[in-house]
């Protein structure tokens, strides 16, 4: 199996995921709901078959080039998305992860000449993918939690009941926070492997840690004062600002002129 067969696989995988998602929606109240599951899982199986085939063909783990890397992004993101979906029934998360996975697979499809492009030595590591994938998922959860926070603030203004809103926000923050923790720790383990130290307070690391701390405050604030919904919602919205700085803004800070993470 080689990249020459790739287009066929991309179409099959994307097709079955999209059909799966449509069926999830159409059949949500029907007895044959399981039909959707078959398509969702089939997509993962097909892309895994391709990857294993490629692995055997290359006689080495396909972990070296950017294209091979994207293949793994596709697999991991979709698997995590499915697990989260079956555990929590979060349809938007299913859609988000599968569309991300399809995007990665199609980038490979349209850019066949980048199969061997520049990947600096420090990035050529088995940690690269898990590290990035869990951050992508964590950020998605936390972004949504802030959205829910804003909805909550709006509801409060209108004097509507916010019990469900805050409960949902709590749950999403727990999931997002857990993924953020994974990202942080994977990053630390990787840094140890590549540079000899797990934490160097590089500006990006500092801001990632700050993001983590702010959500830690939110979690504990909720544990202690369940009634204080209004302040909680505000913390949630503010936390997102820190997250955005970490995500996009770090490169522009005066403290970040020597970062290894600037990209």
């Amino acid at each position, binding site marked *: 199996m080689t990249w020459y067969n790739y287009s066929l696989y991309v179409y099959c995988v994307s097709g079955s995921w999209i059909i799966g998602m449509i069926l999830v929606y159409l059949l949500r109240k029907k007895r044959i709901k399981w039909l959707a599951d078959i398509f969702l899982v089939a997509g993962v199986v097909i892309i895994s078959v391709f990857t294993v085939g490629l692995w055997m063909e290359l006689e080495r783990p396909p972990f070296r080039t950017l294209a091979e890397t994207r293949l793994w992004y596709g697999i991991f993101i979709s698997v995590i998305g499915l697990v989260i979906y079956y555990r929590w029934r979060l349809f938007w998360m299913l859609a988000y992860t599968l569309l991300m996975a399809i995007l990665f697979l199609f980038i490979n499809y349209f850019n066949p000449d980048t199969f061997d492009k520049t990947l600096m030595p420090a990035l050529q590591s088995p940690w690269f993918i898990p590290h990035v994938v869990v951050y992508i998922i964590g950020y998605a959860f936390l972004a949504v939690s802030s959205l829910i926070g804003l909805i909550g603030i709006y509801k409060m203004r209108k004097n509507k009941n916010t019990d469900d809103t805050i409960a949902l926000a709590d749950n999403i923050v727990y999931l997002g926070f857990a993924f953020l923790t*994974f990202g942080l720790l994977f990053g630390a383990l990787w840094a140890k492997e590549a540079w000899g130290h797990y934490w160097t307070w590089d500006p990006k690391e500092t801001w990632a840690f700050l993001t983590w701390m702010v959500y830690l405050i939110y979690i504990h604030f909720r544990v202690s004062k369940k009634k204080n919904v209004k302040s909680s919602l505000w913390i949630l919205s503010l936390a997102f600002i820190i997250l955005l700085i970490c995500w996009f803004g770090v490169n522009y800070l005066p403290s970040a002129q020597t970062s290894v993470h600037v990209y």
Partner: protein
Amino acid sequence: MDGMNKNKKRKTWQSPWGYLESFIISSSILIIGFIIEFFSGDNLLKLPAWPVNLILIVIVISYIIIVQKFFKTSIVKWFSSPPAAISAISILTFLILLMGFIPQNNEASDGFVKMIGLTHVTTSWPYLLCSFFLLLILGFTIVRRLFPLTIKNFAFFLNHAGLFIVIVTASLGSADLWRLNMQTVEGRAIFTSYDHNGNSYNLPFAIKLLDFKIKEYPPNIGLYSNKDNKLKIDKKTQLMEVVEGSSKILDNWNIIIEKYLNGSKKDSLGYDTSNAIGAAPAAYVKAVNQISSKEICGWVSCGSFNSLMKPLVLTSDLELVMTIPVAREYSSDIRVFESMKKYKDYTIKVNEPLKVHGWTIYQTGYNEKMGKWSNMSIIELVNDPWLPAVYVGIFMLLTGSLYLVWMGRSNQAKKTKNNDLV
């Protein structure tokens, strides 16, 4: 909730302490840290090394357990309360936020900001005191919530004790951490290495570089503007990878690579293949202007440490230049000697360090001026005896987080299990 009513009647500093008192205490600790830092001048803070650090850990943990179990005063209770935790986390977050904005360990910095430690936060008194305070609160919380042994408490334990272990072992362990640099040279066994301050140390083993290898990406060709003195790289004009037979349009010029030599030497006629040391890549290029149909042919080379770079002039202010190839992978074959007769050979590369005799050896660099002809390889040797303990903490945190993913906000999980959340 009657707790709320009680809170309203309660005066400041009357127990149980709430947010106001907690934040007053945490901020005082931060301010005391600033003051100590201010008066301690230029003396850098140093954490104690083995075995004092271990003794300290044992004392602190025993203290927490004994006090928490046998002295149940309201102050002790406060130490494991959410308001205390939140104030401690918030104050530390505030300090790190400052650190996020102020450039750290910058030689040029000076003045008040430096005096109170904000230019070197992680080695300053305020940071030390705030994190120690956080650790105390974390410790008291862990001991209080240890029993009964339910799954929920166990997950709580994994998260909190995991974090406790990571912070304690990583910070106190840093005093026992050795990081040494060594410049290995092909053909010579070396056992002297240097720390960041330039002090030299002799290792219990010697290292000889057998071979330094480098794999490179192909070089790129781009347009260089003499007017702006820089490479033109924007959405329209990008770099072009040098591959024989390929062509690409760069800013109105159609560039065709007619011939590519991996290593070359210059002679009277042009460039010819060469494998000599310092033989730079060169390409024979045809450039056709799409507007004026003007055609220019010639050699382009990026040069090396001992051959000149060669641009191809297109117009008075536009040249075609080749960039120096970037390293894709570099590695060193090394021989590690325990004695003259006892040795073993290994290969190290970035991301694939080697573990021998309690040291981890990392490939960090090479002579970049010489590039692929470098006969010198820079390696870093790290000895981190506390690492296994740090990994135990990290592993506990990972497991605890898995639980969070699975249970979510657990008390609501049951209620909503089979309903769609969104």
